[in-house]
Each structure stands twice: as C-alpha cells, then as structure tokens.
C-alpha cells in the first residue's frame, strides 16, 4: 500500500468505517514498534507506546494534514508517547531486551554486542537517539527524516554524525570493560 492507500483508508475512517484503520495499523506496526523498542529499550513499554500512538492517531485523524506523510505524523505521536514513558520511568529501572540472534553466530557474544549498542543508544540524548533510530530502523531517506523531525536535512546529517561519535565513545567504555 502506498501513501494513496493511506489516504483512502483515512478517508474511509473519517466516513464512519473504523475497520478501515486496521490496514494502517497492519502496515505501520512493524516499523513503529521497532522505533519504540529502540527508543525505549523495553518490549512491554514499546508495545504500550505503539498501541497508544495508534489509538491517539485514530482519535485525532481529523487533524492529520494529508500533505504530510502519514508515517511522519504517526512518528511524532509515538515520540510523545515514548517521552511520556521515559519521564515516568525511574532512573534505576532496568532495561530488559530479549532479542533474536543471527544464525551461526555465537549467541552469547552477539547478545553482548547487541546489549552494548542498545545500552549506548539509550544513553544518547533523545534528539540524537531519534535520528539514529529513524536512520537505521526505518527506510526513510535523509529528506524524509528531516520532514518527520521538522529540521533541515543538513541538521539530520550533523546530528547523525555526532550521535555515532558519541556511540563510539560509549562503546569504547564497553570494549575496555570486557
């Protein structure tokens, strides 16, 4: 389904057919859930945030500007949900990730690496983390990320560069500690 498919489903919802929203949820749930998971580092929190984002988007569908990409609008709602979760989270609350590992790889080492990068990601300030997440866990281009975040594409690139530098520094600590 392309963006015109979104438009048709949205129009249908606005005309009193809420069941048409299922196509939108089905289309975006994977991308949105993975964004939430990387932003929050916790499966349950990511599930709740994604679910709330979809429901809130539905409830405010009339305020969606069809000139925008639907994913961009959804992402902004999800980001607010994630920020709410992060604000409510106690600083000592542990992050629990149970992720699949690639076939053939040493699962212990792979998990250790994944945990290290995810932990480093969670240490980044939100404005850097969101750029990394959108770049690496969605198929958005720089321009689309810029439109989603409402910043120039040059700023997306500079934030991404700074974010990777910071991740590198955080991963140094992990490598030394190993």
């Amino acid at each position, binding site marked *: 389904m392309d963006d015109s498919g979104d438009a048709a489903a949205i129009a249908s*919802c*606005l*005309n*009193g*057919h*809420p*069941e048409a*929203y*299922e196509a939108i*949820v*089905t289309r975006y*749930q*994977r991308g*949105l*859930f*993975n964004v939430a*998971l*990387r932003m929050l580092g916790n*499966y*349950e929190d990511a*599930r709740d945030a*994604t*679910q709330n984002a*979809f*429901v809130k988007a*539905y*409830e*405010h*569908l*009339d*305020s969606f500007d069809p000139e925008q990409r639907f994913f961009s609008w959804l992402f902004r709602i999800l980001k607010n949900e994630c920020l709410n979760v992060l604000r409510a989270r106690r600083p000592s609350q542990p992050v629990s990730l149970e*992720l*699949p*590992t*690639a076939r053939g790889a040493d699962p212990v080492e*792979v998990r250790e*690496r*994944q945990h*290290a*990068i*995810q932990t480093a*990601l969670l240490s980044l300030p939100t404005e850097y983390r969101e750029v*990394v997440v959108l770049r*690496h*866990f969605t198929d958005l281009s720089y321009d689309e990320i810029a439109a989603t975040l409402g910043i120039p594409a040059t700023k997306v690139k500079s934030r991404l*560069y700074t974010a*990777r*530098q910071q*991740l*590198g*520094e955080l*991963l*140094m600590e992990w*490598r*030394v500690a*190993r």
Partner: protein
Amino acid sequence: MTNINDPWRDDEVTTMLNDLPEVEPPPTLAQEVMSTIASRTPARGIHPPAISTKKGATMAKKVLWIVAASAAAALLVMRFAGYPPVERGTEATIGAAQRYQAPQISSADVKTQDTQLQAFLQSDLFRQLAADKAAQQALKNKDFQRALSDAAVRAALVSADVRSEIIASRVAENGVRQDAIRAQNELLRAALDASPALHVALASNDVVAALAASNALHVALASADAAIWLSNEAAINAVMSAAAVNQLDAAAVSAGAAAGGAAKDAATGAAR
C-alpha cells in the same frame, strides 16, 4: 588488529547498529488497537470521536459539571436544612429517613465520565454487577483491576474455556494452582506472563470464588469491550455506589415492613 584504546570508526558503529535485529511486533498488537478503538467508538459507528463530538463533548462535559455541582449543592442544602420535612406520624419510620440520607452520585463520581461511561452506567451489565455481591468482592481487588487493564488478560478471559480452567484449578482458600493453569492454555500463559497482577489476583479466594459464582462477572469478561470497565475506577466506584444504594433501599423496605408489622400487632393487642 584493533587495540582496545583505538577510537571506534564511524563504519564500525554503523555496522553494529545495522546488526541490531528487527523485532517482530507483538502478534496481538493490531487486534488490541482495533478493540480499543471499537470500545471507544460510539455504537452507531460514526467515527472519530474527536471529529463528530469535539464541541458537543466539551459542552456535554460543562453541562455534566454544572449538573453535578448543582446536585451536590442541593444535597448539602437538603442535608443541613432538613428538607424535605418528615411527615407527622412517620418520624419513627426508618425507611423514610434512610432514603434521604442514602449516598447519591456526587461530582467526585462523575469527574471522569464520558459518553461511553454514561452508556455503561445505563447498561444491563451495570445493573447486574450492582446486584451481584460476588462480582463486587472481585472488583474490590486492586490486583484484579490492574490485571484487567492489560489487554492480554482481557483477551484470555474472554474465552469461556480459560475461565473454566481457572475455576477447575481452584484450591480452597488459596485461589488457584498457578502451575497447573499455566500449563493448560496458551492464552492464559501469555496473560500470566504479561501481567504480574494476574498472579496475585488469582491467589485471591474472592476473585476465584467470584469467577465460579458470579454470572455478571462472566457476562462482563466474555466481552473484551465490556471487561475494560472492570479496570475503570470511575465505573467500579459507580457499581459500588449503586450496590450500596440497593442495600439501603432493601434495608429500608424490610425495616418499614417490620415497623408496619409491629404497629399492626400493637394495634391488634390494644383492640383486645
């Protein structure tokens, strides 16, 4: 060879990020979103609440507040002014006095109401719950309330089989044997994994006894849309208030009947 003190190269970080696997979203996510939307959409199906009722809802809320505030003020005046006056000759009738002092819906009870809650308060299910003591005992259990706020728990308890299995695993005074029910049903296992509150709730004899005895609870749990009200504090408070009013009314009726009987006996005795 990389030295541990070498700085990380940009491409190394990129590779590590790209190696993070994409994770499958929860299989019930779309279903949960759609059932939440369905439970919040008016029955006539005209969607987005925000579109069709934005202004109306604001106005309705204002009206609701005004009515609630007026009702509370009127109740206070009645309470302190002794209005309406008790008719002469009925001063000793307990029923009349109790009726005027029975708890009423106050502004605190209506603060979170919306159109769906109003609909629930007027439903048969609400009346059944307000008349069902076993259901009320279960609803008083905070862990049961918390468990039912979880979509996975509601999804599991919709199944009559799951409810039967819980009841079948009951151990007197100790809720259920959780190791037994965990092994019985995938939905139930998922619900137990998702909700620590469900573990605690199922250890409560009140909750399990209600599941075994309360028809109203079964009716509510059989629908994920209806079950959501069992985790809604305003809805539960309303059920409890209505149950209290029912009990006072019943007490007033029986006290009135007893007083009437005694008066009749006294009159008969005097005549003799």
